[in-house]
């Protein structure tokens, strides 16, 4: 479907016809968007309260001078773990989407190892990860836009690289 989209002539000066025919997740329920905003809001408060929105705190953790971040990730994982497992084992489906409750399991391949390594270099260099960077802008740390700009460039570069690779390999699909 994406190839079909690409071949459509772009309308003059208008928005290109992207994503036509794909039903957006949030169209399943009117309260979907408010709920996502609420969840993001609580998530953002947590990033600010924990001080993880400050790269200095993350860098001090990585320098092993203040290990408090273990409690951030630990506290979050316990809450999420109880919720994920409880609902997954219930066998029920989510009320707003009808999606069956399940765990977050991704396939293990070379990319998940190499990607983790590259992310680690970036995290160690800057002290920023995506969620914390968004929250950092929220606390008024406008300099973080350098970091977020970098993240978009990085995400674009890997997209382009993988597309070129899959063209060379003659494969159309990607994960």
């Amino acid at each position: 479907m994406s190839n079909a989209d690409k071949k459509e002539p772009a309308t003059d000066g208008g928005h290109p016809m992207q994503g036509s025919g794909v039903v957006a997740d949030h169209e399943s329920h009117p309260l979907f968007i408010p709920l996502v905003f609420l969840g993001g809001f609580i998530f953002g408060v947590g990033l600010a309260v924990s001080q993880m929105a400050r790269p200095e705190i993350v860098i001090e953790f990585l320098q092993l001078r203040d290990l408090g971040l273990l409690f951030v990730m630990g506290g979050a994982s316990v809450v999420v773990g109880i919720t994920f497992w409880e609902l997954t084992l219930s066998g029920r489906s989510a009320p707003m989407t009808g999606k069956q409750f399940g765990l977050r399991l991704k396939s293990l391949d070379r990319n998940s190892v190499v990607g983790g390594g590259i992310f680690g270099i970036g995290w160690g260099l800057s002290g920023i990860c995506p969620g914390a960077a968004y929250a950092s802008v929220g606390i008024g740390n406008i300099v973080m836009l350098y970091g977020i700009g970098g993240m978009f460039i990085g995400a674009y570069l890997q997209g382009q690289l993988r597309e070129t690779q899959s063209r060379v390999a003659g494969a159309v699909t990607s994960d």
Partner: protein
Amino acid sequence: MFELPLLIESLFPRGIEHYLLGGILIGLGTAVIYVGTGIHAGASTFLESTLSYGSKLSRFQQPKFISSRDWRVVFTLGIVSGAMTYALLSGEFGWVTDVQPWRLFIGGILVGIGTRLGKGCTSGHGVCGVASGSRTSILNVAIFMLVAIGVAQLLLAVGVTP
């Protein structure tokens, strides 16, 4: 008997309460979205799903990005608003990092490449994946954690600061 409090103080010089409270709130935010929608919300997919608005690369034009890009923008705006509200109420708003822009920018590029290639970040793998007991996520987190500690120690050793 006297060493334990000292050890705790040296490992956690700022205390642990706000770290734990922040972590629980991060978990609650993720849980709220999951309970209603069954979605494991991670923060880094936003980068690619948002690129789908402007880029015609078929990598970004996949249904998984197109169908989630609107709510991912809302999720990110929620994160920004939540952090902003807390900072305004606590009087921290306007805090600016001393970490040099080149570190944020170059680090950001690597974070963008690595999280998307590796299928997740600190929230996707670190919280949702680890909580799910996913071996891929546990391995991914172990790798990025160890590499990041190594890089941070190296920068400290050669005197790159802040």
